[in-house]
Structures are given as C-alpha cells and as structure tokens.
C-alpha cells in the first residue's frame, strides 16, 4: 500500500511539510487499521473468538460494493439524474449491509456450534473459513482487481503543501462517523446488552438477554466494519480495485489490536492510529536505513512494535489483565 502513498510525498518539500504529509498518510492508513481492529475486538469481546477470517470479510465487503455499484448499478438505475456521489454512497451502503448479512450467516453456521469449545480450535476454524472465502473471492474478482468506480477518483485537495486525496477526506469523515455511531450504539439498550454479554454470558442470560442473538449481531456489526474498511482499502490511493491482495490488509492490522489490548475498543482505535503513523513514518524516515533494516521494513514495523509492547505489557496498552485463579 505504500506505492500509492509515495506518489503523494513531494520530493522538494520542507521538513515540516514532509512531516505533515507523513502524518496525514499515517492517519489514512491508521483509520483503516482502526476500523479493522475494532472489528477484531468486538468479536473477541462478545464471543471470545479471534477472527482470522476478517481479511476475507474485508475483501467480500468491498467486492459486494463493486458488484452493487458497478455491475448492478443499484440504486442508480432507478434514480436518473441524481448526483453521482449520492447514488454511489447508497450503493456502498447496500453492498456493506449485504456483507453484514454474510457475517450473520457465517456466525450462525460455523461459530454458533463452537460455543464453549477451546479458543484455539475456534481460531483455527476461522482460518479455515478465511481460506474458503478468500479462494472464492479470488476466483471471482481475479488478479487484476475489480474497480469500485467511486465518484472521487484520483482528485486531490491541497492544504498548504500537504496533498490529501478527496477519497481520504471522505475516509476520515466516515471513520469518525462510524466510531461515533458505535459509541452511541454501545449506550443504547442493545448495546448495553452486548456489553453485558461480553462481560459475563451467564449473568447476561439470567437477565433475559438472548446471548445467541447478540453473537449474531456482533458478527453483523463486524462484517459492516470490515466492508467499510474494504472500500477504503480498494480505492485510490491504495489500490485500483478489489483483488486477491485486498484481504491481506487484515494481517497488517493484527499489531494494532494487540497494541491496544484484545478486549479494548478504545485501544483498537488508538492502536490502529499508532501503527498507521508508525508505518508511514518508517516509509518516510527509515528509507535511508534500508541497507540495515532491509527493504520493506515499514510493512513489518507494526509487528516489531507489537513484540516490544507485549514484552513490557503482556495485555497491550489498554487490555485488561487476565486474573489467574486456581
């Protein structure tokens, strides 16, 4: 994902401009990681499952948006004359919700039978899910990628000497809105039920909360988040469309969840932004040390940071320490 960003870094920029540009690029990457990491954390909190199929959900979400917006042209075909950004946004919502339905289905079919089984088994089960889903999407989407045809294209805005693509402005807005919506949701009746389930399933059940429904709901939410992240991973400046590479972004987001702590939503956002900015700054400032650190170091700096943080704080920055009872 760095090649796209490198175009935006001006060669003759001053060091302040360079820093600001790096920061903006880092936030752009970081918000995607934050969206992904929130997805991991919500599933982990609600169902104690570490979801390795998240990458597949990202690719499927973006792919469904491509189908709805480009191939089917819904709802654009019924709204002649409507603004392009409006029809495309509605199409994106439809695609993402379809992805959410798939999340619901996956939970019902594969995760529900595993309630109470060892956590490792369930984690590996999601690896199996990931392999199946990713192979099917690869086959349909192909190596060349399927463009999403978003209305903003490659247009950019310039603030001082800092260049920001319009897509990234949209991305910042959407991410902020999503985080705010989630915060509101967790205070709603259903949201409180969800938090209660995450805290103690049996107690929640005793209060009349339908735990199974909460599980399904959390997978639905997470597939939504994955789809939103998927859109921003597959458009300018990161890629030209959904392809077999789209799903791999989820593996880059793993350090973010660990950094924040597996069970902290706030930690996920903070961790995502930290890892994003770290990657971006590594690709700007550590390039001179390529002969020592190796080319492509920025791609793994997240994991290096994660290792260091875990050795100091084994439950991440915001995670709750597991109390070990005999």
């Amino acid at each position, binding site marked *: 994902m760095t090649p796209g960003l490198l175009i935006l870094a001006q060669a003759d920029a001053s060091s302040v401009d360079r820093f600001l540009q790096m920061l903006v690029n880092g936030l752009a990457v970081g918000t995607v990681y934050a969206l992904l990491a929130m997805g991991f954390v919500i599933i*982990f909190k609600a169902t104690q499952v*570490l979801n390795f199929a998240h990458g597949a959900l990202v690719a499927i979400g973006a792919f469904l948006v491509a189908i709805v917006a480009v191939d089917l042209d819904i709802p654009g075909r019924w709204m002649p004359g409507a603004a392009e950004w409006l029809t495309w946004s509605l199409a994106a919502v439809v695609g993402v919700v379809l992805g959410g339905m798939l999340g619901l289905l996956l939970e019902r079919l*594969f995760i529900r*039978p*595993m309630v109470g*089984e060892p*956590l*490792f*088994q*369930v*984690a*590996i*089960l999601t*690896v*199996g*899910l*990931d*392999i*199946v889903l990713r*192979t*099917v999407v*690869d*086959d349909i989407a192909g190596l060349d990628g399927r463009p999403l045809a978003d209305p903003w294209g490659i247009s950019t805005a310039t603030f001082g000497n800092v260049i920001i693509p319009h897509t990234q402005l949209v991305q910042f807005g959407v991410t902020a809105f999503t985080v705010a919506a989630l915060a509101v949701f967790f205070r709603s009746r259903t949201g409180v039920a969800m938090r209660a389930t995450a805290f103690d399933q049996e107690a929640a059940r005793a209060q009349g909360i339908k735990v199974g429904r909460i599980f399904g709901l959390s997978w639905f939410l997470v597939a939504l988040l994955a789809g939103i992240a998927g859109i921003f991973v597959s458009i300018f400046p990161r890629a030209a469309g959904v392809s077999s590479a789209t799903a791999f972004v989820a*593996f880059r987001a*793993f*350090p973010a*969840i*660990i950094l924040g702590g*597996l069970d902290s939503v706030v930690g996920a956002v903070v961790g995502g932004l930290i890892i994003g900015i770290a990657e971006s700054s590594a690709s700007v400032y550590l390039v001179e040390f390529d002969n020592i650190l*190796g*080319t*492509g*170091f920025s*791609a*793994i700096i997240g*994991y*290096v940071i*994660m*290792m260091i943080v*875990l*050795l100091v704080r*084994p*439950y991440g920055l915001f995670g709750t320490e*597991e109390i*070990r*009872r*005999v």
Partner: protein
Amino acid sequence: MRGRPLLYTSYEGDQALLNTWTKKTVFGLMMLLLILLPLGVVPGFTWAASNSWMLVFSQVSIFLIAALGLNLLTGLAGQVSLGHAFFMGVGAYTAAILGGPEGPLWGLGLPIWVWLPAAGMVAALVGVAIAPTSFRVRGLYLAIVTLGLVFIGEHLFRNFDFISGGSQSGRAFPPFEFKFWKEETPLVDFSTDGSWFGVELSSQAKTFYLMLTIAVVAGLVAKNIQRTRAGRAFQSIRDRDVAAEITGVDEFRYKTLAFALSSFFAGVSGALFASFVGRTIPEAFGLALSIEIIAIVLIGGAGVVSGMALGSLFVIVLPLLVLNFTEWLTTVAKTGDGIAQSIADFVVATSSFDPGLISSIPGVSPGLNVFQVNQVLYGLLIIGFIIFEPLGLFGIWIRIRNYWKGWPFTY
C-alpha cells in the same frame, strides 16, 4: 495377554511404546509395508512404487516430522503457535549455509551429518530465545506473537539475500548424499538411480527410504518424550498451568523445553523440505506453511503421535486425489453417456464459457480451477474436523475401536 483388553500385569507393560498386541501387529505390518513399498512387490500397492508416488510419500514423511514438532508444543504442552514455518525456515537456511554449494551465496559444502543436526540445533536455540514470550504472553496473544514471528522471519529471510538468494530466484539447497567430508564422490548418493544390496532402486525410492528412516526415528523420539517426566509436565501445563505450577512443575523451564524440542523438529523438517524441493524462495516459509502444519495436527488429532502420520498423509495426498478425480470427471463429461455424463458435465467445465463448478481451463471459464478447489476443500476440511470431530482422524479410529471392543453390545 490376548483377549483381555487393558489388562496389564506390570508397570512396564502399561508404559510400553506399543502396549497392546494389536498395536504391535499393526506397527510391524505398517513398517513391513513401507519398507517393501518402493520395491513394488506388495500386492495391491504396486502403483505406489512409481516415482511420483515415492516423491509424495517422501513429502508426507517430511511434513510428518514438522507436525510431530508442533504436536509437542500445541498438542502436548498446549502452547498455540502459528510460527512453525519460521522455525522451519531457520532450519532450512542453516542447512543452506553449512551444506549448500559454495558459490556467490553463502555455502560451506559440508556433509549431511553436519548440516542436518545443526539445522535442528540452531532452530532449537532460536526457539529457546522465543520461549520467554510464551511465559509472559498467554493463549491467543501468543498466537498473534508467533504470527508476527512468521512475518518478521519472512522479512529477514528475504533481506539476507546473501543467504537466501532473495525472492526472485531463491537458492539451491544441499543435495541428499552421504560424505565423510568434502570428497568428490559421495559414499551414498540419493540423487542418482543405482542398486543397493543387489536391488535396483530409483533415486526417488532411495530418497523415500532416507525420509522414512528419519521420520520413524522422529516418531519414536516424539512418542518417548510423551512418556518422560518432561512429557507429563507438558501435559499438566496444557491442562491447567496454575495447578501444574503449584504441584511443582517449573513452568518457565518446561515451556522453554517444549519450544526447544518443537523447534528442533521444525528445523530438521525445514532443512529436509528445502533440500527435497532443491530450490526455494524465502516466501515458501510463510503463513501458509504454518497453517498446513496446524491442519495436519488438527486433522490427525492433537496430542497423538500416530494421528500425525494419518494427518500428513491426508493433507498431502488429498490434493492429488482431487486432481485425479477432476481428470476422471473431465473424461466422463467428454466421452461418457447417460446420467453420469450429465452430472460430470455439470461439475466440470470442459470448454471455455461452459458453466461448471470446476474448470479445467484456468482463467477462461467461470468455475474454480483445480488448485482453488483444493484450497476450498482444505478449508472446509479444517472447519469440518473442528466442528464434527475435534479429535481428528484419530478420534474416528477411537470410535471404530470402541465399537468393536464392546461388540456385540453398544457400550
């Protein structure tokens, strides 16, 4: 003690490696079958003597060694690791440095009795260095740390291109041959056809014998580790780490030991794998390899040594079966008639733009190609085994055994 199941008259009898009459017979017959297999004299198994099947069985043996290692760590000691491929890579590149051909890349050209044990030792040392993290970080956190290990390892392998040859061309690994030191003609050469004790053997058959020997030794070692003090300590840590600590099991020491042993197996297996393939790029030791080994452990039955053999056979041979099955279906769809033809025609796509689930023409017709079908099946198998048979193939065997044990009663 025939006819009286589970009746042991001595402690030794109970603790024996093959503690029942059936196990002894089955083990003996299996060994005999495997030894005679390359000669093509076993009735019903003559097909297995072909060179391509010999290569397949060699690969099964190599993956078995890796799976035995992961089984020690995950199945026995209960430590989740996604980083097995990293340790295999460490072993492979150690072997390459010590035994690889001298040339532009690092290679000392030493014989196999140096590079093979060294590959295991270096991997074990790296394992010891990683082990303290498993003491601090538990459960799924450890899974992600070991996942990070795979990515960092891949980065290192790729960038040490004076060892690995980079991701473009990769490098050549040492061939299978026994030498005293660096003399010209090897004592035993596995890469050319020739006769052993008057029996004509292809190079593939010779390689199979070598791999089989190492795998059987590894299996016996793994089985024996389960019976030692350390093996019991591993299992107590797996079942309840706090309780183990209270009963006097030094958690730190045994976790480190588990990592070291597991990495030793991985290192040996990685070195054999790289040499077996001959030329490999750093990306070969990525997450996919780790998942393959985990799949073997889960499908075979975590914690069971004989299950590992079943698991690796299953995981390696399945793609070949799918390939052959698809070819057979294609011929049926083209030349067959009746209902069989209609079914086959529905499943496979025989010409471009012919709808079908499996397409034999990649990139043209819409269906999945054979490789993708394999991937999907592989994923479904992992899912299926975890949901329906958490004990793996070994669990199926247990159920069959218990049925006959109680026969004609149901329990």
